[in-house]
């Protein structure tokens, strides 16, 4: 076999950022080759320039603010940076196409799926309507969309997230392009759907010998589908090579730090609980949300929690795991009484707080606190962070000076400078904000901490540090923790026991190690089987990698 020629050849690509950005180039002197019939994963943390690179290939950059300044992007020998716009339009879709992260925003909400795909075909191919329809229906069947004829007439909002992404993939593949760019195509999907879409991409790629450039931040996904891997850091590729080499024998310190931060799927051994008495107990919790409806019509009722019961001993961590919409966040919000439960009991140390009024609840507020998911929405943008940490204790009668002094010492405890108290949230990174959120919860001296997806919005290296911080404060303060997550890898590392939720109900619960080793409910089995890269165990490094600064 002769030396294969790359189908897509990026040579020394540099993309300039506006002058006020934190670095000069989004992508600097980047060279990458994509051969037919292979999947190259470009992996990196947020801000590493991987999406900018993908958009540069298709000419989708917001010029003139962000523009390519050097290099060539050769698609079968043709430089995409130099071709006239008309030619580029012809290339897009036919020679090279793209699947985006969020199919809901990538599809036109007021056009049926069939019409949108037909538009792509009609633009590029002079085929009669009947043949185009035939082609689309065949493709729908190929991407395993149920009932292709119905899907063709459906609007994007009528499909599930997974179906929308399948439709996007069908749209990208309809002209049989030799190159497919997928920008985090499974990030917005649930883990079981993600597994199906990954399988689909791999299958379609194999059938059509497509070269796939797959952008992701998730090493699990990389392990699942990559033939080759390129690791990006601050706009540059720091390491690239065959997937097995990069994943198991990473050379560059940054790659080692990233892979070292990936939580292992295997739960570590945990000490047996010290007492048998439950400290936090939830019994038969019910919560339904009613939407729409009015005088003349009955609204839609969604049961977010149905007869949910669990127990937590003092100092224990319970992981509530499930996919989006499983009701795990609702349960968390009921426990902390941000949402009023419809029925059931929430007992702390034997006393029921589920039915207390606002005033009676106030003394309990100190004992149970929450860490939120979104580091950007969970802090008041118009208030210095020190004040926000001090607000809680001051509400409960602590003097302003004492509360501020405590806020400063707490900031130090979570790894920030005490001086940070006077700064505003926008001056901090996502990981730092999450630390501030933790400090705010700790300021109340809680006994129970409810953490709702505290690390899912963070990059993997930052995630590891925040998890470490949570583990540390849990030990130090003897906290009992209710940990909500959709990420089974995180759950394996953090939780003593696990409760799996689906459609508002707990389908299975038990010690973490047991659930991971012997899942008994079919849904738990599906969940575990869907974890991307489950066959790959991130290697341990003797030289504990120094994680990048938060």
């Amino acid at each position, binding site marked *: 076999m002769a030396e294969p020629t790359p189908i897509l050849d990026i040579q020394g690509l540099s993309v300039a950022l506006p002058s006020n950005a934190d670095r000069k180039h989004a992508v600097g002197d980047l060279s990458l080759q994509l051969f037919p019939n292979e999947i190259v994963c470009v992996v990196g943390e947020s801000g590493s320039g991987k999406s900018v690179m993908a958009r540069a290939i298709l000419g989708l950059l917001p010029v003139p603010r962000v523009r390519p300044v050097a290099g060539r992007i050769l698609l079968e020998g043709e430089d995409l940076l130099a071709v006239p716009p008309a030619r580029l339009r012809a290339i897009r879709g036919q020679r090279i196409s793209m699947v985006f992260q969020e199919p809901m925003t990538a599809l036109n909400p007021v056009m049926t799926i069939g019409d949108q795909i037909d538009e792509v075909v009609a633009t590029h191919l002079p085929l009669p309507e009947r043949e185009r329809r035939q082609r689309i229906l065949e493709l729908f069947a190929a991407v395993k969309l149920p009932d292709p004829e119905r899907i063709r007439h459906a609007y994007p909002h009528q499909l599930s997230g997974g179906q929308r992404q399948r439709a996007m993939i069908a749209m990208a593949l309809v002209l049989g392009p030799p190159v497919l760019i997928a920008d985090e195509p499974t990030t917005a999907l649930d883990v079981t759907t993600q597994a199906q879409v990954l399988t689909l991409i791999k299958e379609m790629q194999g059938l059509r010998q497509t070269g796939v450039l797959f952008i992701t931040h998730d090493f699990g996904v990389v392990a699942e589908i990559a033939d080759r891997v390129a690791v990006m850091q601050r706009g540059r590729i720091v390491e690239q090579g065959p997937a097995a080499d990069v994943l198991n024998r990473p050379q560059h310190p940054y790659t080692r730090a990233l892979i070292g931060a990936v939580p292992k799927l295997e739960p570590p051994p945990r000490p047996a609980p010290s007492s048998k008495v439950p400290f936090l107990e939830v019994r038969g919790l019910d919560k339904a949300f009613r939407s729409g409806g009015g005088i003349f019509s009955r609204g839609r009722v969604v049961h977010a929690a149905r007869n949910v019961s669990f127990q937590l001993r003092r100092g224990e961590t319970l992981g509530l795991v499930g996919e989006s919409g499983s009701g795990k966040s609702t349960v968390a919000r009921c426990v*902390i*009484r941000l949402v009023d439960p419809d029925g059931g009991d929430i007992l702390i140390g034997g006393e029921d707080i589920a039915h207390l009024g606002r005033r009676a609840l106030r003394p309990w507020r100190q004992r149970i606190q929450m860490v*939120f998911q979104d580091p950007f*929405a*969970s802090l*008041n943008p118009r208030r210095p962070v020190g004040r926000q940490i001090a607000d809680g204790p001051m509400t409960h009668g602590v003097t302003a000076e004492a509360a501020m002094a405590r806020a400063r010492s707490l900031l130090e405890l979570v790894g920030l400078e005490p001086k940070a108290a006077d700064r505003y949230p926008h001056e901090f990174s996502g990981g730092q904000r999450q630390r501030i959120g933790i400090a705010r919860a700790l300021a109340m001296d809680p006994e129970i901490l409810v953490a709702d997806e505290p690390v899912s919005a963070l990059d993997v290296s930052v995630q590891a540090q925040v998890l470490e911080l949570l583990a540390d404060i849990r030990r130090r303060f003897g906290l009992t923790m209710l940990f909500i997550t959709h990420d089974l890898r995180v759950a394996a590392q953090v939780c003593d026991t696990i409760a799996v939720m689906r459609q508002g109900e707990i389908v299975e619960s038990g010690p973490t190690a047991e659930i991971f080793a012997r899942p008994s409910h079919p849904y738990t089995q599906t969940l575990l089987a869907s974890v991307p890269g489950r066959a790959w165990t991130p290697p341990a490094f003797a030289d504990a990698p120094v994680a990048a600064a938060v």
Partner: protein
Amino acid sequence: MIAFWHLFRRNRAAVFGLALLGLVLLLAAAGPLFYPESAFKLVDKPFQAPFGHWLLGTDMLGRDVLAGLVHGARTSLLIGLVATFVAATFGVVMGGLAGYYGGWIDDLLMRTTELFQTIPSFIFAIVLVAVLSPSIESVVIAIAVVSWPAMARLVRGEFMALRGREFVQASVAQGMSDAKIILVQILPNCLSPIIVTGSLMVATAILIESGLSFLGLGDPNVMSWGFMIGAGRGVLRSAWWLCAIPGLAILLTVLAINLVGEGLNDALNPRLRER
């Protein structure tokens, strides 16, 4: 503050508006120094054209038009600012309560707001002034009554969006009282749209006031631009300046305020501008 000025300065038209507004304010503030007497005082022969002995001429009774303009500026700005302040305060309270509590409180307050919105605002203002008898206070009340619903709706929307944000939920979980959450956590986060809308409301208030005065429903003892136009409209063909000059004053003032409002919007909501 300096950073804010830098953002504001990027909109040239807004800076021009600010300069113009400053000029009007200066006119209103310094006017009485030059015209300490009543603007209704007869000073000379009637119907003198501008740029003669009197810089802007005299009207049909021999009153100095410039003196009227200066005193009118005080009236217009005073009514515009006070009416807007009253309307904005009331609107923020109504919208804030509706947006924060939701449920039946929201229904009650918003149906009330809609009741006010269904009546054409200018006609409503006329009715109110007619019922209350024309005076500065009744004009202010009338303008405030017809302009608060817009603010209430805006603030309600902002509050509803912020109510669900995690930092507000964190405050609830800390046991903070509703009043403190509303004032300390939510309100500061919707100040920018309130300021922008408020600035545009001043312009509308000035227009309504001029309209009322034009119809003879202004305070009869206070000189105002609308009154000057209304008085001069009978002699529009022979003495055009009696309408044109106060008309131009209204146009420029309202334009200036709108430009400043626009500039504030750009500076306070930087994300909208990036498009």
